[in-house]
């Protein structure tokens, strides 16, 4: 591929990916309550609105709380499972690996509907904590995949050395395995956190009528009244995602995390 063609092609793709966000960024700085582009006047008040308007602030708090808790629960489910599959030979336990990957592979509406019928049947429909459990199950795939990858990259001779020197299972885990797996725990958590923050359908079907997360709030605003706050929230979300993934890339090996094993130039 010639370099001019390549530059042009990359420019077009970048434009395609960035254009909607550029327009939204423009809309978010409108002076008045209008979704005009190019923006009329300049004001950052719509960013303040996210934190000052109680409705938007509550939605933001709900989303962040949900993401913090559900990502933690997802990691708590994925870590022992990935560790067990790495440590033991138990082929039938792979069933759980499959179950952990399934919610993310199937169309999201299926997991959402399954959880909706489930919570309705057991009588907890609409309780805020059901959204935490639902998101944790829906996103458990992400820490599970990163952790499985992390465990395969651990040199078993290190673990063997530790146990030859007399360390028991617990000590080996705490002093050898945990420090090596920590970057993968962090990135698995980061992936689940960002996606939970943005998730709409599962949250809507489980707690949509009792609680508003930010994506639900944006959707309701789309139906019942546009405001530039939707645009400022969008920009806030994109920036958050870029910062978090940027940090993962800064402190971890992003190409390797995404499955490129030969990224270290071997």
């Amino acid at each position, binding site marked *: 591929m010639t370099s001019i063609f390549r530059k042009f092609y990359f420019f077009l*793709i970048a434009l395609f990916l960035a254009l909607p966000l550029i327009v939204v960024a423009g809309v978010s700085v409108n002076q008045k309550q209008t979704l005009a*582009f190019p923006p009329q006047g300049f004001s950052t008040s719509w960013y303040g609105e996210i934190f000052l308007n109680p409705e938007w602030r509550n939605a933001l708090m709900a989303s962040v709380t949900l993401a913090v808790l559900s990502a933690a629960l997802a990691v708590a489910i994925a870590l022992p*499972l990935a560790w067990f599959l790495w440590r033991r030979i138990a082929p039938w336990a792979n069933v759980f690996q499959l179950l952990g990957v399934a919610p993310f592979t199937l169309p999201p*509406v*299926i997991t959402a509907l*399954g959880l909706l*019928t489930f919570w309705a049947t057991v009588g907890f429909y609409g309780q805020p904590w059901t959204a935490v459990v639902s998101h944790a*199950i829906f996103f458990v795939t992400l820490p599970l995949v990163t952790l499985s990858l992390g465990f395969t990259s651990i040199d078993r001779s290190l673990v063997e050395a530790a146990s030859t020197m007399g360390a028991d299972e617990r000590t080996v885990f705490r002093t050898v395995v945990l420090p090596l797996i920590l970057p993968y725990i962090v990135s698995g958590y980061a992936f689940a956190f960002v996606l939970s923050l943005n998730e709409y359908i599962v949250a809507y079907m489980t707690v949509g009528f009792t609680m508003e997360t930010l994506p639900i709030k944006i959707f309701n605003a789309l139906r019942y009244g546009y405001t530039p706050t939707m645009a400022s929230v969008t920009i806030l979300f994109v920036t958050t995602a870029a910062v978090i*993934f940027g940090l993962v890339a800064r402190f971890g090996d992003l*190409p390797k995390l995404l499955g490129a094993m030969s990224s270290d130039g071997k």
Partner: protein
Amino acid sequence: MRREPPQTVGDYTPLLFPAAMLTIFFVVPFGTMIAVSFFQRQQGGFYTPAFVFDNYARFLTAFFGGVLGFSLMMAIAVAICCVVLALPFTYMLTRMARSVQVVWLVALLSVLSLSEVIIGFAWSTLFSRTAGITNILVALGLMGEAKALTPSFAAVLTGMVYQAFPYTVLVLFPALVRLDPTLTEAARTLGASPLKAFFTVVVPALRNTIVATLIMVFIFALGSYLLPQLLGRPQHWTLSVLITDQAIYQSNMPFAAAMAVFLVLVTLGLVALTVIAGRKGEAA
């Protein structure tokens, strides 16, 4: 510490919590949904346990056939557009400096993680009359008057390609990184142009990867539940939208569940196809 089979019951304890969580909150809800798909619908949004096939019988109507046909066609169109756009892009990306790769990967992940609500909102703004792309064209003197480009089929397709493009790149990325660079080098040494080397060496070598990616993007596109609603007209609704609509707004849970079960079967069939395509790839 070698891998060994569990010796005592105690060795199974780490498995307890994950297994319980996945069983109670994924397997059981899945079963509940299948059960509800056979239930009888009552007036007012309730349903009673029963074992009827009424909900599945509704699949035989022309309306449902139309929605299913449209969903499949839409997902195929999205999958083809994405792979055609993403294959040369990902190929060139894997040949770039590592630092450039990382920047692109961060950008792609950020777009991929965006909520469908946000993507729908962003594109409906871009296609709107007041803030849309047509205003830019008017400002440049290319168009007389700004106009709305949504709702339309093209708007839905664009939105869904936007949503699925980063996913396609990330699916293709590992396979393309592992592609032996000496293959294209050999083709180049023997006098093939870069373009010719790409189409006669890279594409055939990746045939199975491309098929598997097409299917995965197809499944991903089938899952899009909001974009057809936000950017299209009711005739552009897909199966996922219809399921959401039946469950939430029409309060017909049994019918929604039956459609969801059907969607699972379609998806599982396709996943099986992907696995078979992958196996062939290993054998080749």
